């Protein structure tokens, strides 16, 4: 099926209604889009996090697909167990071989931090699954604490802004490139506001001959401090400020996706989120300059990678 919304709207929703995610939450938008884009029936593993606690409160569930949650850090390994069981059950003749897509949904806490080792191990072993990081740049489920995905200078409850320290002091981990260094067939960055780009990447990830990873920026209106209706606008500003480039790494080759992306100063994006209000109140703030400089540097490095890939 092509990625036409009218066609997709004919498919039954695999992710239902009545969940407890916040009004304006980008996670549920992305989950709906991802499940809708998949061509095969999915089996999902879920990491502990907002999505999990808001959609699977016993005896209810929002999901209409088989799903396994077991803990915070291990969803990549959980789906690895599913993949292994699948192969053995088919080999034993206890189950028919059939097209299925194994999918993981995990937050940036579960991906960048506590579950890093589990994910890295599962990728190295080559289980065939699509790992979706729903990246809202913080531990939002436990009340907005910093993660290693949180941007420099951002206010969180564990990096509050004070006189001695203005928000998070460290630059964030470049998880997408770290995953790409595992040399898996498909790696990408996507963002909540660009459904077509995300869905296209999901299709490619599903077709990949091995593990695939998509890091989806899912702005959190509670944690980033913006009004719920602005979710898509903030997502777009992050991309246009070069803070979240949309690209893919197909068999090791880097490629930007979509039209020209970086067309704004980072200040435009930072101003849209009150988590930066302590630094954006002063246009000459040193942290803003540092963010801009680092974004420019990383952007150039990414363009160089893309050019090198195109030249190969």
């Amino acid at each position, binding site marked *: 099926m092509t990625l036409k919304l009218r066609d997709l709207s004919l498919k039954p929703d695999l992710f239902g209604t009545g969940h407890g995610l916040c009004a304006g939450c980008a996670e549920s938008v992305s989950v709906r889009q991802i499940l809708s884009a998949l061509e095969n029936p999915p089996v999902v593993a879920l990491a502990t996090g907002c999505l999990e606690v808001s959609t699977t409160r016993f005896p209810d569930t929002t999901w209409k697909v088989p799903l396994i949650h077991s803990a915070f850090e291990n969803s990549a390994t959980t789906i690895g167990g599913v993949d292994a*069981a699948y192969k053995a059950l088919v080999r034993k003749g206890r189950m028919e071989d059939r097209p299925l897509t194994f999918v993981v949904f995990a937050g940036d806490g579960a991906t960048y931090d506590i579950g890093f080792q*589990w994910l890295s191990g599962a990728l190295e072993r080559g289980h065939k699954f699509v790992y979706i990081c729903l990246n809202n740049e913080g531990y939002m489920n436990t009340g907005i604490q910093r993660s290693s995905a949180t941007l420099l200078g951002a206010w969180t409850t564990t990096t509050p802004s004070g006189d001695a320290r203005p928000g998070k002091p460290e630059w964030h981990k470049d998880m997408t490139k770290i995953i790409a260094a595992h040399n898996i067939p498909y790696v990408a960055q996507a963002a909540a506001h660009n459904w077509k780009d995300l869905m296209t990447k999901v299709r490619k990830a599903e077709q990949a001959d091995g593990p695939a990873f998509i890091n989806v920026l899912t702005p959190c209106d509670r944690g980033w401090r913006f009004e719920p209706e602005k979710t898509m606008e903030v997502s777009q500003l992050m991309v246009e400020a070069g803070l979240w480039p949309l690209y893919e790494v197909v068999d090791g080759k880097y490629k930007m996706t979509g039209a020209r992306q970086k067309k704004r100063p980072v200040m435009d994006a930072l101003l849209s989120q009150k988590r930066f209000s302590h630094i954006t109140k002063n246009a000459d703030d040193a942290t803003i300059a540092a963010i801009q400089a680092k974004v420019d540097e990383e952007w150039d490095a990414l363009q160089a990678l893309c050019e090198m890939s195109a030249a190969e």
Partner: protein
Amino acid sequence: MTTTQKQGQKPSSGITLPPAQAINGGEAVAYAMRQIDPEVVAAYPITPQTFIIEKFSEYVADGLVNTEYINVESEHAAMSACVGATAAGGRAQTATSGPGLALMYEMLWVASGMRLPIVMHLCSRSFSAPLNILCDHSDVMGMRESSWPMLIGSSPQEAYDQAVAMPTIAENKSVLLPVANVLDGFTVTHSVERVEVLPDEVVKEFAGEYEPDIWALQPGSTATFGTLDANDFYFEHKRQQVEAMKNSLEVVRTQLNAVGEITGRPMNLVEEYLMDDAEIALVVLGSSEGMVRAAIDQARADGIKVGMVRIRLFRPFPVADVRKALEGIGAVGVLDRAIAFGTPGNGLLQDLATSTRTMPDRPLLMDFVYGLGGRATPKQLFRQAVDEVLNMNETRVEPDEPAYLGLK
């Protein structure tokens, strides 16, 4: 290609004498795992468990199993993969030791709480620090409250016989809990002994296949595994686990009997030695049985009416069987191979004290800590323990503190 297909044999009606092999406990367990041919094995090497997974890896490399063997990057991942595989609908097994068990501790409770019948072979080992790779029961005691039925064998033969029974206990519909087959590090895992193994097809027929009611890979499945319980259902799910643990006791008895009938080697929840006319007793777990038995023989030769009770089913604790074994016994020495720091009594003593507290003429109890971190406990020390228990039986005074056998 399975061994069954290779051999092309059907289960024979009359079991002839099974082939005896000289193998260690680790290989004996791996041998049973091969015969059971679970869908998934996920494990991480750790001394003294390593023998099991090395041997099993050979079976995988030689194409003797259908199993997907996952070389995970940690023990937590091992149990996580088993959780995923079992929820998916496969039979899964793992094996570990001391610190590895500690690393997967979170997942022990997840596996039992999700009611996933995983089999784990636990090669008992001390906990760090200081680092020590040798046997004690710190890990056994460390998981005793995690809602896993736990069987502790005393020899490579028992490790094998129990391994054959384990999946049928775990997967019984009235149980549906993960189970642990405990074999003592080195003394069982590495001891080469004569082990009689069953023909493959007999084990396969006995173990059958995992037939879950709800599984994630079931065509058309829409089940959500691992939901969130708030304060409205968590208590009730824990109460269900209490019942499942209770149910498991008779299931273990039945399945051990069933294996015993096939092998001709009976297995009981509680094994007794010279208890018929005993006046005092030592209670022990696992492979120290051999040395304790020798000490008892010596004491018997010295005219002391002492017997031994070895508890095979450690969880659920077989209270009725233990009470029956200790009926009419005046004093009991409890052999604890781990310390429960800061508690009023070490693990096995606590269990014995609780189990016997309402007996009309309850035996007096005294605790002996021994064998920590692989410390060898020679026969004479257990023989001394018999004397101390004999003395307590005469003075009728229970000591408050444990004795430490072999402490320098």
